[in-house]
């Protein structure tokens, strides 16, 4: 089987979302860089893969996909094994909980946490824009409320969808990894079950491996 292709820089959060799924299922893959400086993401060749001109895009033979969560589901279904069943589609209740917490990441967690990553890391380092502290403070306030809910959930279960690792947990990896590189990482100390869950995730070979390539350079 030819390795699947993921288009976009490996450091990019939404590319890493797909890569962590590929690592967890043990699939062979190739990362094909897309040069943003050269506006490659707006080239006709890339727009044919992703009409929104964003990364990641994905190719597996004739199958060309975009949207990181859709790509990830494709990967998790195709390479599902007894050791790696991260969608639980054979069990309605479990699959429903995976879906709920996947939507929670997209619509509750990420909107609260990602602005801190953009303001503290991405804007200063990559766009030369200084941190907007007002945005940071508002986001941290929202994030505290979200983490209270996560704390209650993770006090009852080892992982978000239940007592099994799933796509719901993996979805949290890329942005949380970068959040931990901001000055606000210690926020998680106030939520011991959340912190323990994060450390459990980061101990996984997939996340250690990807984390090493993603680590912001000094």
């Amino acid at each position, binding site marked *: 089987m030819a390795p699947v292709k993921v288009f976009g820089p490996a450091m990019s959060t939404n590319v890493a979302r797909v890569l962590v799924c590929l690592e967890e299922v043990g699939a062979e893959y190739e990362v094909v860089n897309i040069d943003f400086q050269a506006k490659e993401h707006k080239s006709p060749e890339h727009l044919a893969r992703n009409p929104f001109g964003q990364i990641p895009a994905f190719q597996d033979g004739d199958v060309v996909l975009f949207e990181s*969560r*859709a790509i990830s589901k494709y990967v998790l279904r195709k390479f599902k094994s007894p050791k790696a069943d991260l969608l639980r589609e054979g069990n309605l*209740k479990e699959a*429903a909980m995976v879906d*709920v917490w996947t939507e929670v990441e997209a619509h*509750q967690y990420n909107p609260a946490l990602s602005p801190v990553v953009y303001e503290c890391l991405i804007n200063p380092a990559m766009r030369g824009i200084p941190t907007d502290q007002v945005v940071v403070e508002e986001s941290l306030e929202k994030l505290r409320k979200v983490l209270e*809910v996560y704390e209650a959930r993770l006090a009852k279960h080892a992982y978000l969808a239940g007592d099994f690792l799933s796509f719901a947990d993996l979805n949290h990896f890329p942005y949380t990894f970068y959040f931990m590189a901001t000055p606000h990482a210690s926020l998680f100390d106030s939520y011991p079950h959340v912190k323990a869950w994060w450390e459990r995730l980061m101990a996984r070979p997939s996340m250690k491996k990807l984390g090493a390539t993603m680590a912001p350079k000094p």
Partner: protein
Amino acid sequence: MAPLKLYGMVLSPNVVRVATVLNEKGLDFEIVDVDLRTGAHKQPDFLALNPFGQIPALEDGDEVVYESRAINRYIATKYKSSGADLVPTTPSAKMEVWLEVESHHFHPNASPLVFQLLVKPILGSTPDPEVVDKHATQLAKVLDVYEAHLAKNKYLAGDEFTLADANHMAYLLFLSKTPKASLINERPHVKAWWEDIAARPAFKKTIAAIPLPPPPSA
């Protein structure tokens, strides 16, 4: 079998998102009012259903699901053999892509437009022209991608109506009641797609149950 209970307000687009799918499946359900104006969504009995304090939530016997898109997938999967079949038996990567496009491109622009142009007048305040312009401009670019896609595909996932189309219908309905309906009507394939799916008998039933306000004065 106890009827399904959908918690929320009948006028809420995210509640209508779920009602759309319940009606496509021909399922009996009751809407249990959770009045946002009285803060009912932040009361302990509702937080027991959705700890994030948002509508809708769905109660199906012992099962409770929240996040409207997770609820819809749960209904479409569990009740697959009832009414219209919204999720193909062989998973469709294309359907997954367009489910995500709704969530991350269409919704973030359609939702603020509906809030500014429909909800605020009901609450007695006026639309913010800058917010309206920003999201109308962005939604126009998004719908250009839809236009190109629907020129080659009858429905978002291909030949068949699926969950990807169904998830758009609530916000398309509310958007069509605003001056920004032009965004849909100016794009012939988007317009034809909307008119086709809006004519579905199950959707007529959904619309009939919504106490839509009279159109705002021009």
